């Protein structure tokens, strides 16, 4: 009925306030404008819901503001507030979910009371912590309010992980191999820990060498989960889980499921929608690109798209690929069937997600998320729902006998109001492919980074769907960007970027274009946008249907870290001067010198951003070939320079500040070179660069040249190419760390070299990609901004106190960033001199703030620093020899 994003609506849409409003029309009975919903969550979905409500003609909606949204950090006001005109629709609550069961109950009562006082008749919980809280849903239903989402009975039967598996088995749904283990509810924390040890032993004896996943039954979105490899780890992990879920209290839910961890799997999920009677699936989303259980990139997987990919592969005679795609299609078919069966079994009466893992040619049902999910836009992009008056076979939408719904949130509202009367809809394809990237406030190692400030964010480009909570909405009065602090009060997600296309490559290409044009400025701002840019280019260069497993991102990060290790020491000025010094003739020196900014500027940019460099190496791979250790240009490096400037969003533009685009004299030089080679190609008839180079080596002209002109062309070729070999330094670095080994095979499986999975190496990744803040060795400083805790739980003793000795790897403190509790361990050994932070339980600290003063066992000695400098010199000397 409504269309939120004009760029996503290709299909005929029926504006809600025209034909449907016609009296007595069939569609009109599904009007929802009598709803007065209260939004009780935050995140990108809050603003999206506000927009959907407005588009549906619902103006009297309210939002709930938590303290962290308004008054814990300055310049971190909920960005949506800029968009709400009437302050009477803003309500306040301490937090959304309370710190424990008792507070949660209190919060539920508070919310219901608030709704009643302010005449709200519906509650929308988005994908907040409370959305799957059965107590909340039941209480709302009991209070006579609409709950916009699955009813309590669905949450009860499908949302609880243990219960869901029982129903799944009885509905002939394939479930996880291994053993499930449910612990008694009334158990104390210690009892739960003991039980966990016993059961872990049992499982590990039965399945030696495997790992076990512990999951809190109330968890989700990566929270409340840990993986163990040995039984003695169980108590610590159980406590961590219960602490994270705020379930350490006596009556809190302490149920933990223990099951075998699937090591090399893919994560796919089916979007379901139902009214309790019928159930329709909207295809799958592949969410395998994740890190530490946090999804990063989600892409649609549909029958239509798979079929056309399959046809394409067959036409090209790619047998292995076709077989792989066929298998994908079979799995998708089975998953969709099972999902719909399961949805009907639990009488799903709103939206939910049927989560599966895919392992080879098999899939297993994991759990059902009985709420809308962050990645729902991906499904919206590929299917719309067509509702048709069942009494007419020949419908006329203009007369109100049918309508199309493109928004899942709108669908949820329709179902909340009119579930029983809605006929089973038909899903109609929209875009063939849709992809979503989660933009998070994380550093290059993808660890949360709190405290950054955004001071500017470029406007969305055409076709870009940006769900950013309103961060980039300008001050409504002055139209200036408002600074926003990523305070880290909640998770690290800042925004979602959604792209679509006629097939997956086009969708990824569009996402790459969006990321290319995205420019965010700020103070201490760190995001994963570079990571996404690099990853998308990896996918585009290999195959966009590469079957990524959940291990992939970890391995990929390790590879990027190794790349950074190779490039960290590169001294571009040294290499550039080396190239000049090879020549005595002033003309040679001049033609190289004139390319100084042209070549060094993009190289410096690439060397300073490992993820961008990774993307560039994927993009640029076809430019070179290795003959042994020698790199041969396959295409003209002049064209590579052009591509590189584009890749870095530095193409010449009069609208961009000059400092952000190619300098004009570099542009002029590049254009001159390009026009030279275009004319040369025309005149010689040779387009392959290698052949062109060869023919230019000859005395005899190729094509219509006088001897004189031929010599001039040779001179120009020498001139334009001089110094460009510097670009090879990046390929040498890639070669040295075997960057291109991480690749997709013909059958679309990704080869992950075992070295990238080495746990010891993966640990180093962090230090390489996100080096800890500099500190003297007499201090231990906060690795990131966040909430500092000196002990594991309020009851336990501090990790260290003055006088204590610590070894490498000993835990020193916990820092809570974006709701994640990170235990920080010592990177050197020493003795604690003083604990600088007095408040041991939750002090906000800044990155680099001194936490402990210490006496190191082995103080840094100046000789090793001198040695490092010496090493760097040797490194660059060797690199230079390789370069020439």
């Amino acid at each position, binding site marked *: 009925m409504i269309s939120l994003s004009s760029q996503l609506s290709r299909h005929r849409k029926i504006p809600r306030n025209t034909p449907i409003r016609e009296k007595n029309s069939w569609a009109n009975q599904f009007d929802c404008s009598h709803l007065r919903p209260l939004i009780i969550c935050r995140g990108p979905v809050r603003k999206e819901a506000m927009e959907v409500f407005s588009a549906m003609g619902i103006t009297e909606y309210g939002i709930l*503001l938590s*303290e962290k949204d*308004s*008054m814990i*950090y*300055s*310049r971190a*006001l909920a960005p949506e*507030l*800029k968009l709400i*005109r*009437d*302050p009477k629709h803003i309500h*306040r609550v301490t937090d959304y979910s309370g710190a424990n069961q008792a507070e949660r109950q209190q919060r539920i009562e508070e919310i219901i009371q608030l709704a009643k006082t302010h005449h709200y008749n519906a509650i929308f919980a988005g994908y907040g912590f409370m959305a799957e809280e059965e107590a909340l849903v039941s209480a709302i239903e009991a209070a006579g309010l609409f709950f916009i989402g699955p009813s309590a009975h669905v949450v009860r039967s499908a949302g609880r992980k243990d219960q869901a598996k029982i129903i799944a088995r009885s509905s002939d749904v394939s479930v996880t191999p291994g053993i499930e283990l449910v612990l008694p509810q009334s158990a104390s924390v210690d009892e739960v820990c003991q039980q966990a040890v016993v059961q872990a032993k049992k499982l590990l004896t039965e399945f030696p060498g495997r790992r076990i996943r512990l999951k809190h039954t109330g968890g989700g979105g990566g929270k409340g989960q840990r993986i163990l490899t040995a039984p003695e780890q169980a108590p610590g992990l159980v406590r961590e889980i219960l602490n994270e879920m705020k379930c350490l209290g006596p009556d809190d839910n302490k149920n933990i499921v223990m099951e075998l961890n699937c090591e090399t799997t893919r994560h796919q999920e089916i979007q379901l929608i139902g009214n309790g009677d019928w159930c329709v699936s909207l295809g799958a989303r592949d969410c395998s690109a994740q890190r530490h259980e946090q999804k990063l990139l989600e892409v649609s997987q549909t029958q239509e798209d798979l079929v056309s990919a399959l046809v394409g592969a067959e036409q090209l005679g790619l047998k292995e690929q076709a077989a792989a795609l066929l298998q994908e299609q079979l799995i998708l078919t089975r998953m969709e069937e099972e999902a719909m069966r399961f949805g009907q079994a639990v009488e799903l009466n709103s939206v939910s997600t049927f989560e599966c893992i895919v392992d080879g040619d098999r899939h297993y049902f994991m759990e059902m998320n009985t709420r809308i999910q962050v990645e729902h836009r991906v499904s919206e992009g590929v299917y719309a729902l067509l509702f048709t008056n069942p009494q007419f076979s020949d419908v006329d939408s203009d007369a109100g006998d049918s309508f199309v719904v493109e928004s899942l949130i709108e669908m949820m509202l329709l179902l909340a109001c009119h579930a029983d009367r809605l006929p089973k809809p038909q899903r109609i394809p929209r875009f063939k492919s849709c992809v979503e990237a989660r933009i998070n406030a994380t550093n290059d190692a993808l660890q949360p980074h709190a405290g950054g400030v955004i*001071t*500017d964010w470029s406007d969305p480009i055409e076709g870009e769907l940006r769900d950013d909570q309103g961060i980039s909405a300008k*001050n*409504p*009065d*002055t139209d*200036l960007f*408002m600074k926003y602090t990523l305070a880290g009060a909640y998770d690290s997600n800042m925004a979602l970027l959604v792209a679509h296309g006629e097939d997956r490559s086009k969708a990824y290409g569009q996402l790459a274009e969006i990321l290319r044009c995205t420019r965010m*400025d700020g*103070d201490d701002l760190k995001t994963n946008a570079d990571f996404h840019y690099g990853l998308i280019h990896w996918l585009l260069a290999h195959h966009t249907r590469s079957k990524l497993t959940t291990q992939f991102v970890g391995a990929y990060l390790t590879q990027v870290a190794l790349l950074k290790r190779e490039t960290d020491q590169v001294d571009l000025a040294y290499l550039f001067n080396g190239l000049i010094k090879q020549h005595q*003739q002033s*003309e*040679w020196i001049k*033609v190289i010198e*004139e390319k*100084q*900014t042209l070549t*060094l500027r993009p190289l410096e940019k690439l060397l300073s951003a490992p993820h961008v460099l990774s993307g560039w190496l994927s993009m640029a791979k076809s430019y070179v070939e290795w003959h042994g250790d020698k790199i041969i240009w396959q295409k003209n490096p002049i064209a590579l320079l052009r591509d590189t400037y584009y890749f870095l969003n530095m193409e010449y533009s*009069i*609208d961009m*500040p*000059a*400092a*952000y685009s190619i*300098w004009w*004299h570099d542009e002029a*030089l590049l254009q*001159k*070179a390009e*026009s*030279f080679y275009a*004319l*040369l190609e025309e*005149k010689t008839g040779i387009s392959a660069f290698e052949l062109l180079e060869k023919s230019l*080596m000859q005395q005899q002209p190729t094509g219509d040249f006088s001897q004189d*002109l031929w*010599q*001039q*062309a*040779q*001179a*120009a070729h*020498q*001139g*334009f190419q*001089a110094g460009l070999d510097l670009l090879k330094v990046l390929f040498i670095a890639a070669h040295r760390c075997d960057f291109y080994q991480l690749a997709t095979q013909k059958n679309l499986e990704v080869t992950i070299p075992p070295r990238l999975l080495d746990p010891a190496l993966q640990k180093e990744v962090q230090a390489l990609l996100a080096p800890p803040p500099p500190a003297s060795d007499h201090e231990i400083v906060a690795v990131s901004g966040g909430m500092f805790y000196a002990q594991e739980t309020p009851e336990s003793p501090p990790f260290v106190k003055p006088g204590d000795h610590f070894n490498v790897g000993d835990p020193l403190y916990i820092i809570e960033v974006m709701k994640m509790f990170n235990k920080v361990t010592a990177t050197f050994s020493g003795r604690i001199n003083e604990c600088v932070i007095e408040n041991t339980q939750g002090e906000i600290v800044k990155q680099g703030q001194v936490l402990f003063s210490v006496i190191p066992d082995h103080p840094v000695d100046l000789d090793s620093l001198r040695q490092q400098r010496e090493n760097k010199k040797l490194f660059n000397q060797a690199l230079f020899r390789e370069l020439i």
Partner: protein
Amino acid sequence: MNSLTPTLDNPLAEKKSEATPATPYDQALADAHVLMERPYVAASIQNIERQHQKNRMTVWERLRVLSKQKPTVLYQNWGPNLDGASIVTAIITINGRDVAVYGHDFTLRAGAMDATNGRKLAELFRLAGERKIPVIGMNDSAGAYVPAGVGGLDGYAEAFSALRKISGVVPSIMCMFGFNAGGGSYLPRQGSFLIQPKNTFFGLTGPGVVKSVLGEDVSADELGGPAVHSQSGVADYIVEDEVSALRTAINLLNYIPNNNNCVAPYQATSDSLDRKTLDIDILLRKVFNSPAGFNTPFDVGLIVQNICDHGDYFEFQPSRARNTLCAFGRLGGHVVGFCANNSAVASGQIDIDAAYKNARFIRFCNLYNIPMIFMEDTTGFLPGKDQETLGIVQAGRAMLDAIIDLRTPRFLLIIRNAFGGAYASFNNYNTGADFVLALPSARIAVMGPAGKTFVYKDELKAIQAEAKRRSQLGDETPIQIDAWVQAQEQLLNKRYEQEFMNPKEALSLGSISQLVMPADLRKVLGEQLDFYMRHYQVGPFESVQREFH
């Protein structure tokens, strides 16, 4: 092959032959064209590349960041070389406002100053002062042009005095690009605001001279980098790069008027003045109900943010003296200057840096018709040997005088602590406030908790006497007696808090006009501001010149 001489020319391109002018008139036009183009093309490509190698833009590129519209360049061929004398002066339009702008052209003789371009700069300042338009300076100069001899110094001197004469008439925003020394530092600091990007230097003289004169081995960054100037207050804003500096200048312009004869740009707001500032209530409840009670620090920015239209404000010297917050914001569309003690940093005590930061900001608001809201929450001026040695009396006096001199609408909100000298000097009615209001948490007293020694002299004496008596009796151990003494003193503390640390006396004396509930802060302040602005006579500050600044 090796005998070839490489070129960067395209031999395959069609050769364009330039037609020679047909008539003398054509020749005149062609010559004029060359002259008109000269300032843009006078620099050699090598010089431009050298500027770019340092990641610096040319003056023309910087101008384009400020305004996409073509600048009106003044005296474009001034100077013996007819190339504009290595400084560009122009009138540009930023968001519809005329701005006088200058920028050193580092690609021409390193932007060095001689008598000619000193005069050219002075002409621009005079023009800005007469036409009453703000100034933006883009400084990137190696200093005085040595071959010009004393002429370079004279050039600086003329520019210095021209800029001083428009100070207080039109505001000026100075960006520091590159490496500016000597006069190149003094001149921009004469301006209203100074913005320094990272990886730049400015100061009296560079590390080389410092080394030779003083033997000090110091890097340019340690000598005059952003870390140094942001802490001394020489630089008001530290930004990432040149583009951020220029954008900061544009943002700043949004809050300041064109001259001393008008108000800062009013901006009608969609944020209702009736909006309840409920978050302030929640904040204070949380803060004052915490275990440390009324001694709990909090970030005063949270209050400012809740009062301002859409929560937007623009801090002055955000990285210096954070125990005080100075910021421009809008309330009901009027630009207002906030000056607030920030208890989150060093208990909000006013030290030398805070006093000078406040004084500087208040003087600016005073001269340019910007009303001010003061927020008081401090235990006082920071005492002690260090502060006295560095002259806290002079710094505190500068702030006090700036407050007394303030003639724009001015308000005081007492949030919590207002004791002694800090109260007396911080915009109360007697120093000239228009309207003083207090939150229920306000505690106005001659002294903080230490005041009990003076107020309850007799009671304390009696306790001591009783303790002595008890110890002579010998019924109790010394420890028991000590405990009793402490308990009695505690009671007196409480009594002092109840009797004196509240707004009652101040209300009874008319030192506070009214109490205000936290949730009504925006409305009450907004309405008062609107009232006083309606009746404010806009014009230049015309008071007698006082002895100190």
